[in-house]
C-alpha cells in the first residue's frame, strides 16, 4: 500500500471539512478523487503533504506519516497544486530549474525539453517569461515539473484544468504510462470521463464525506455512466 488514509477528520477554520474519510492506493495505481466544489478534495491532498494537520485519523505515504514527517513525504511526492502558477518573471526553463533545484534535482536542458515535449508546450514559448502564458500553457509547465520530479508518488490537483481536449487526451496517456512505470498517482479532477479512462479506482466525495467508490475490474475500465449517475445522485453539492 503506497498511500493509505483511514478515518481522517480535518477541520479548517473551525469547520469540519473531511469526515471519516478512508481509502488506499497501491503501487502503480491511479486513484481519482471526484466531488463538487468545496467537497474537500484539495484538503485531502494538502493533508497528505502535511500542510494541514488532521484532527483525527491515520495517513501514510510510502510508510511515512505526513503529520510527523512532512519533509520525508514531500521528498518522495511530486505535487501539482490546484491552479498552479509558477513565477511569472521567469521563463519555463528557469522555473523548472528553480523548482527542481529546490527538490535537489539538477536537470539538463535536453531533459527539460523532453518533458516540455511530453506536455506539448510549443517550442518558441519556452524561453518567454511565463507572465505571457495562457492558463493551459502554465498548467503544462506545472505538469512537466511534476513529471520531472521523477517521484514514486504523484498528487495532482485538477491537472487537466485549462487544457484543451487534445492536451487532455495526451495527459491521460501520460498518466497511464507513468502508472505503468510503477508510479502511484492520486488525482483530483472534475473530469468524469477522463477519470474513468485512467483510474483504477474512483472515490466520490461530498461535503467531506466519502459517498461512493468504484473499482475497475481487471483489464477493464470503470463505466463512465455509472460514475456520472452516482455523481449526480450523491455527490452534487
Amino acid at each position: 500500500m503506497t498511500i493509505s488514509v483511514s478515518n481522517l477528520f480535518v477541520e479548517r477554520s473551525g469547520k469540519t471539512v473531511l469526515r471519516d474519510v478512508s481509502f488506499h492506493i497501491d503501487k502503480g495505481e491511479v486513484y481519482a478523487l471526484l466531488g463538487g466544489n468545496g467537497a474537500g478534495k484539495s484538503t485531502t491532498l494538502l493533508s497528505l503533504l502535511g500542510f494541514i494537520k488532521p484532527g483525527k485519523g491515520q495517513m501514510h505515504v510510502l510508510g511515512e506519516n505526513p503529520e510527523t514527517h512532512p519533509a520525508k513525504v514531500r521528498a518522495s511526492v511530486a505535487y501539482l497544486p490546484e491552479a498552479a502558477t509558477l513565477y511569472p518573471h521567469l521563463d519555463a526553463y528557469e522555473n523548472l530549474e528553480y523548482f527542481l533545484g529546490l527538490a535537489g534535482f539538477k536537470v539538463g536542458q535536453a531533459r527539460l525539453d523532453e518533458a516540455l515535449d511530453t506536455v506539448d508546450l510549443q517550442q518558441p514559448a519556452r524561453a518567454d517569461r511565463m507572465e505571457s502564458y495562457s492558463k493551459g500553457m502554465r498548467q503544462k509547465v506545472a505538469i512537466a515539473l511534476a513529471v520531472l520530479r521523477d517521484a514514486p508518488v504523484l498528487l495532482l490537483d485538477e491537472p487537466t484544468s485549462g487544457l484543451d481536449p487534445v492536451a487532455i487526451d495526451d495527459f491521460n496517456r501520460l498518466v497511464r504510462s507513468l502508472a505503468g512505470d510503477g508510479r502511484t498517482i492520486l488525482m483530483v479532477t472534475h473530469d468524469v470521463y477522463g477519470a474513468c479512462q485512467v483510474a483504477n479506482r474512483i472515490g466520490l466525495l461530498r461535503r467531506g464525506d466519502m459517498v461512493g467508490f468504484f473499482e475497475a475490474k481487471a483489464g477493464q475500465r470503470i463505466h463512465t455512466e455509472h460514475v456520472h449517475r452516482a455523481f449526480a445522485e450523491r455527490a452534487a453539492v
Partner: protein
Amino acid sequence: MNSMWLIAREEWRYWVRSRLARVSVLIFVGLIIASSLFSTLQTLDARHQRLHQQEVAEQTFLSQPARHPHRMVHYGHYAFRPPPPLAVFDPGIDVVTGQSIFLEGHRQNTAMFADARAQAKAGGFGILTPAMVYQILFPLLLIIIGHDIVAREREARTLAPLMGQGVTGITLYCGKALALLGLVGVLALPVLLVSVMSVLLGESIPAGLFLTLTYALFLTCWSALLLLVSFAFKTRGIILAVLMLFWLFGTLIIPRIAVATGDASFPTEGKILTDLRMKDDLREIGDGHNDADPTFSKLKAELLAQYNVGNVEDLPMNFRGVVASTAEARLTKTLNDYAEKRMERESRQSRIIRDFGALSPFLAVGHASKSIAGTDLKSHHRFLREAEVLRFGYVQALNEVHAGQIAYSDDINRSSDQGAEKRTRVDPENWRVLKQFRFETSGTNARLARAAPSLSFLTIWTLGLLGVGVLLARGASP
C-alpha cells in the same frame, strides 16, 4: 542549505527584473550618494576653515603690539572645533550646536554657529545628512522592496509548488533572510565607502568599521522585522500597514515622547531666570577692575599682613593684578558651576532619550552613530570644557603678568599720566602665554563605549525579531 541559496538567488533575480525594486534602489542610492557628496564637501571645507581660523586667531593674538595685559584679556581669542572625519556621515548634534567660541575675560560665551553660512549655501540640503537617509529613508526602501517578500508568493500561489518541493518554513525563512541580507550588504556600501574615506582622513579603522556595522545591524533589524511581519500576516495590505505603523512609531512618535520625557524629567529652568540668578551670584564676587571693591578688603588685609606692609603700594606685586586674578578665579568657579549644572541636565536628558532606544531602533542607531562619529553631546561638552580651560588659562596667565610686571602706582595713574601709561604696556613676548588649541575627537574606545548601550539595544531587537520570525516560519503553509 542549498535550497536556502536557491531561494535567496531567486529573490535577487526577481529584484533585478522588478522595475519597482530597480527604480527604488536607484532613487535611494542616488539620494545617499548626493547627500554624501554634499556632506563631504561641506564637512571638509568646514574642517579646513576652522583649522585655518584657529591658526589665524592664534597669529592675530600673538602679533598684538605692546599694551596693558588686561587689554589683551578683553581683546579675546577664539576656540574652533573642526568636525571629526566621520561627521561627513553623521554631523550629529553639531548642526545645532556652535562650533566656535569667543573667549574673553570675565565671561563664558556660548558657542556660535560657525557654519551657518555654509548651511545656507548648501540650500538646506545639508539638513539631509547621509545618516538621516540611512535612519529614516532606508527602512522605507526596505519596506517598498521587501514587504511582499512572502506575500507575493502567497498571492501568486507559488508557495504551494515551492513548499511542495520539500522546502520547509524555516528554509523559506532563511532563504528570504539571506536575500534581504544581500540587499543590506548592497545598501551598506555607501556607509562603508564614507567610512573608508574617513579612515583616509585620519579616523581610526575600528571607528569606521563600527559605524558601517552599526548601520548594517540597523538594516538587518529592519529586515528581521519585515520577515516577522511577512510570516505573521497573510495579506499584503496588512503587512504594509503594520510595517508603516512601526516606522511611524519608531521614527516619529517614540522620539517625540522620548524628548518630551527628557524635558519633563529634568526641566530646563527658563534662561532668563537662570541668568538673573547667575547675575546675583556674580555680583557677590565683586568687580575685578576695582580694587577698592569691599569684597576684596579681606584679601587686601591678608596680603598686607603676609608681607608685613601698611600700604598696597608697598606690596611686592601689583595689587590690581592680584584682584583681577582672584576675581577671575571666583567668577570662573561660579560660571563653571552653572555650566556644569546645565551640562549635567543636558546629559541626563540625552541619557533618557538614549534609553528610549530600547523602544525604537531608530533612536538606538541615531545615538550609536553620533557616539561613534564623535558628534554627540559628550563631544560637544568636552569642547566647551576644553575651550573654557583655554580661556581661563590665558586670562590668568595675563593676570599674572599684570600682577608681576606692572607697578601698582603706574597702574592706578595710567589714565592721567602718559609716562605711567607707557610703562604699563608690556612686551608682546608675554602674549605667548596663550596655549595652542587643537580640538581632538575622543579616542575610539571611549566613543565605542558610549555607543555600546545603543548597539546592545539594536542587537537585542534584531535577535528578538529573528527569533519570533523563525518561530512563526516553522508553521508556515501555502
